[in-house]
């Protein structure tokens, strides 16, 4: 009786999980499918699931018109660069907050998080003027800097949460053995927090890869990443849906592949310390 109830519960849970998974995946599936449709059939009503003329012409058109690899490299440099610099700043910051908390630590953490609530457009003009005056408009250095600052609160918070799960006694033991602060962070803390650091790195690379407001507003021709590549195929006056889908598929493919191969680390890192 109890086994039957347990099986029923498992079946229900599996069904719900699959339903949620499919719902989340559906927009990506539909984008990929649309990228293989001729433009005239891309937004046909009723929508066509299989009965359309499969074609690769959209991918050919996108390749002919745009320099995909230039946008791709800009995305790689901006997302990986901003995440690595963010980690270099955030690891010592999170260490101090987790292991040497002061009276204001909690307030600082909350304040850092609150900066995420500021609408980005509110600081667009000041940042644009700073970039103009320093000659950094349309440069990858600017975007690396801006995205580092934007994602820093999330990186600090994630690392702080992971570091809190590591017993302070281990670090104390290292200090007793004569470890300097640098050695303590580099050789004791960091190796123990590798799953957490890896998932923070992956998540922030994904966030920086997908960031569209700053990457669209601070770039022109030279440093535009894949977000600008996608935006160049959207049009309110003219049918470009199939080409837009092809461009979107090409833009999300690298990050989907990265996510697929690192899903174990992602899940491990995200659930690190969730259940004691």
């Amino acid at each position, binding site marked *: 009786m109890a086994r039957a109830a347990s099986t029923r519960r498992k079946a229900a849970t599996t069904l719900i999980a699959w339903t949620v998974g499919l719902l989340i995946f559906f927009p990506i599936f539909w984008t990929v499918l649309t990228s293989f449709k001729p*433009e*005239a059939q891309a*937004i*046909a*009503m009723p929508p066509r699931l299989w009965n359309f003329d499969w074609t690769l012409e959209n991918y050919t058109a996108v390749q002919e*018109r745009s320099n995909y690899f230039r946008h791709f490299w800009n995305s790689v440099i901006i997302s990986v660069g901003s995440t690595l610099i963010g980690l270099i700043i955030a690891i010592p910051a999170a260490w101090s907050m987790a292991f040497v908390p002061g009276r204001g630590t909690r307030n600082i953490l909350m304040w850092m998080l609150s900066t995420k609530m500021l609408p980005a457009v509110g600081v*667009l*003009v000041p940042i*644009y*003027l700073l970039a*103009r005056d320093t000659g950094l*408009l*349309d440069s990858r250095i600017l975007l690396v800097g801006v995205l580092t600052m934007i994602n820093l609160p999330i990186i600090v918070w994630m690392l702080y949460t992971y570091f809190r799960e590591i017993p302070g006694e281990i670090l104390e033991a290292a200090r007793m053995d004569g470890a300097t602060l640098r050695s303590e962070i580099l050789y004791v803390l960091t190796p123990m927090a590798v799953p957490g650091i890896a998932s923070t790195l992956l998540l922030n690379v994904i966030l920086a890869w997908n960031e569209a407001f700053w990457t*669209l*507003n601070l770039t*022109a*021709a*030279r440093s*535009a990443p894949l977000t*600008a590549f996608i*935006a*160049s*195929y*959207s*049009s*309110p*006056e*003219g*049918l*470009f*849906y199939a080409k837009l889908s092809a461009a979107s598929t090409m833009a999300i493919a690298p990050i989907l592949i990265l996510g697929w191969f690192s899903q174990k680390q992602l899940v491990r890192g995200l659930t690190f310390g969730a259940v004691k």
Partner: protein
Amino acid sequence: MNRTMRALLGATALCAAGGIASAQENVTLTIATVNNGDMIRMQGLTQDFTAQHPNITLEWVTLEENVLRQRVTTDIATQGGQYDILTIGNYEVPIWAAQNWLVPLNDMPESFEPDDLLEPVADALSVDGTLYASPFYAESAMVMYRTDLAEAASVTIPDSPTWTDIRTAAEAMTDQANGVYGICLRGKAGWGENMAFLTAMANSYGARWFDMEWNPQFDSPEWTEAATDYVDMMTQFGPPGASNNGFNENLSLFQQGQCGIWIDATVAASFVTNPTDSTVADSVGFAQFPNKEGVDNHGNWLWTWSLAIPASSQNQDAAKEFIAWATSRGYSELVAQEQGWAAAPPGTRRSLYDSAEYQEAAPFAAMTLTAIESANTSQSSVQETPYSGGQFVAIPEFQGIGTAVGQQFSAALAGQGDVQQALNNAQQLTQREISRAGYPK
């Protein structure tokens, strides 16, 4: 030759070399543009320009219209200098020219031929008689309808129909059982989406956005009648989910044979008559934008995507060379030679409409010209207005106000509240925003 003489000769040679180098100085022009068929075609033909100007390199920044607008507005307002050429519409040109953000185009190369530009289009891009942007293509609005369906339903749409004619024809053509809807109009909320259409429709009913003291006029009988007829026609004879339909959705419906009548931008005519994309290409008729009986107004819709030079550009001379090439009569001829006359950018030059080849290749040419020539953007309503602009009000605040009002009418079309409620809300929010902006006297 003594040392002084040699030094003088050397200096002269250096100066001459410097002069040549300066004449041939390499320039990179960064061009911000929108993604549409004509612009993409131009990007594909720029080899012709770079062959004539080997020292000029072109860098393109192509973005979706609203993203582009936000992007170039930030750059030009802060004098960022990121772009040498901007693709902007006749909504931005008078506002930005008044701020001295644009370079006047009064000393263009000879090939530019400003006198060949269609007058309403040139006027819409000029301030105090000075041209600040050169039109790449222009559009008004007109009726596109299925001649086969009209014939089968025994209705006739005259060249200059009234809204009663349109309603009668839409009713007769509707065959919902077979997925044919009598009329397709924009319903998606946005100042450039449903409000472009509704503002033109209201103009043709004799309505206006503001009186001369900047008081909103949504409580006027003209607006009530226009909005009621719009929602009523669309509810009875329009496609399902019309409140989500913009230009592209209606284009797709019409091309698939699901619309009897579509009233929208004239640029759509080349899409619906292109047999590669449209299943109804050989049975499309055209008529002027309708008017209400007794009101001498056909909407006054006029939009032009045009090329302008921001004052912050460091390469203004090279930019003028490019604009002269891209918007000249010669460019139309180049397109015709490479891709046929029907692909020439419409609506900007008299010479294009004088061309017998173009008239033959583009069955919509005459009606497009009629629509553009009848558009009066300095006086868009039969009543006096304190603003200019045809299907929009040319004030900086209109983007926000127009979209908010558009949401009210889109909601009414979706059945969330009635027309009167939408008009009341539109009146209140417009009153509030225009007062905040300090317009009422």
